[in-house]
């Protein structure tokens, strides 16, 4: 009796059950179910010309500011709790160089086994669920870090305001440079309106910077148009398997490799105090919950309550911790602590 077959990438039992999708971390997208929203806690974010993060790991950007917003949503397909909602803020005509999109940057370490940029490049499948007030052919693309390799794709939303499951299989790129370090491995782009300069032929690798397919529907072209997305998954292989539901704590920890925020909460869970002579430094070390991708930018927000000192400052940081500092104005006890929900600290090292 045959028990099944085995090859280098996939085991299949005699009754057809495949190992694809059964191993850990099959989904290279982090927060694909849009459940983690450390920065915004469900609040709407307005698109600007620089990368702006909505739910964790997903950012929005556009060539002209304020053309759409993004917000965590509870409008979902069966099996999900959250989606990400895009709302067009105007009727925007696209010039050739315009671009509006939602995207995620996947760290190189997490796609190293795909062997992209070599003859042994592995096939991947991108799957997700979408719901829009618009119908038609929509676009997106995969790009490398140098933005000199890209693969535009299309997908169809045939019925408005109805969840549609999308699956796109892409043969791995055998050319170009695809980082397998802590830099950007793959940039996954969902286009919301792209001009001709950054649009190209769907279904083929190009040696240029493309973020959508020619002729794709423009969400920003209709004022008030909505576009929801969730269940985003990028996996090795030519079949879209079921969405990889990871434990909430695991997903949060994966997000915290790139962004971490401590809020004051209902009390004072952190602060800094000490007793020394005037002009000497008092330090307080904060450990980060997971090792971050690299040394983060650390920002202190709000106006903290201070006694015998100025506002706290950051003295140093690493991928595992950072150091706050206060300096007593006069010899004696100096203290600084947060006093409102706006008083917080974050550490960011997005790609």
């Amino acid at each position: 009796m045959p028990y099944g077959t085995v090859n280098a990438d996939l085991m299949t039992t005699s009754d057809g059950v495949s190992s694809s999708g059964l191993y850990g971390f099959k989904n290279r997208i982090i927060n694909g179910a849009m459940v983690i929203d450390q920065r915004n806690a469900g609040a709407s974010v307005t698109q600007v010309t620089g990368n702006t993060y909505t739910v964790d790991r997903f950012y929005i950007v556009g060539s002209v500011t304020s053309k759409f917003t993004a917000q965590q949503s509870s409008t979902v397909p069966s099996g999900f709790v959250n989606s990400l909602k895009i709302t067009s803020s105007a009727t925007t005509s696209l010039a050739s160089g315009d671009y509006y999109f939602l995207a995620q940057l996947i760290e190189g370490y997490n796609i190293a086994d795909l062997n992209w940029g070599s003859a042994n490049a592995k096939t991947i499948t991108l799957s997700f669920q979408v719901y829009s007030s618009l119908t038609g052919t929509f676009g997106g693309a995969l790009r490398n870090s140098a933005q000199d390799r890209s693969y535009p794709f299309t997908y169809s939303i045939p019925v408005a305001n109805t969840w549609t499951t999308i699956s796109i299989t892409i043969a791995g790129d055998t050319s170009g440079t695809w980082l397998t370090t802590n830099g950007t491995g793959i940039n996954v782009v969902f286009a919301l309106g792209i001009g001709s300069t950054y649009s190209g032929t769907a279904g083929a690798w190009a040696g240029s910077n493309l973020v959508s397919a020619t002729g794709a529907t423009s969400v920003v072209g209709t004022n008030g148009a909505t576009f929801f997305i969730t269940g985003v998954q990028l996996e090795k292989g030519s079949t879209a398997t079921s969405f990889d539901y990871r434990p909430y704590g695991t997903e949060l920890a994966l997000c915290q490799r790139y962004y971490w925020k401590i809020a004051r909460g209902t009390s004072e869970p952190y602060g800094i105090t000490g007793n020394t002579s005037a002009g000497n430094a008092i330090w307080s070390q904060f450990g980060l919950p997971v090792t971050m991708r690299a040394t983060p930018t650390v920002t202190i927000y709000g106006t903290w309550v201070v006694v015998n000192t100025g506002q706290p400052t950051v003295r140093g940081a690493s991928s595992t911790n950072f150091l706050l500092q206060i300096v007593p104005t006069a010899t004696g006890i100096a203290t600084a602590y947060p006093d409102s929900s706006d008083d917080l600290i974050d550490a960011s090292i997005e790609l």
Partner: protein
Amino acid sequence: MIYKQIFDIVRQQVQQNAILRVTDNAFIPFDPDNTDYQAYLKWVAEGNTPQPADEGTQ
């Protein structure tokens, strides 16, 4: 964007491994993998100069 040097009150000198982004009070470490640091380097390469540190204060 405006950047400012940070004074190291312990060593009594300007910090050599970080810069302050004045607009949001962000501490930006000189790590080549930090995109904020990359943006700072680009800003300097465009001919800009950070504000000097306030010596004698943190």
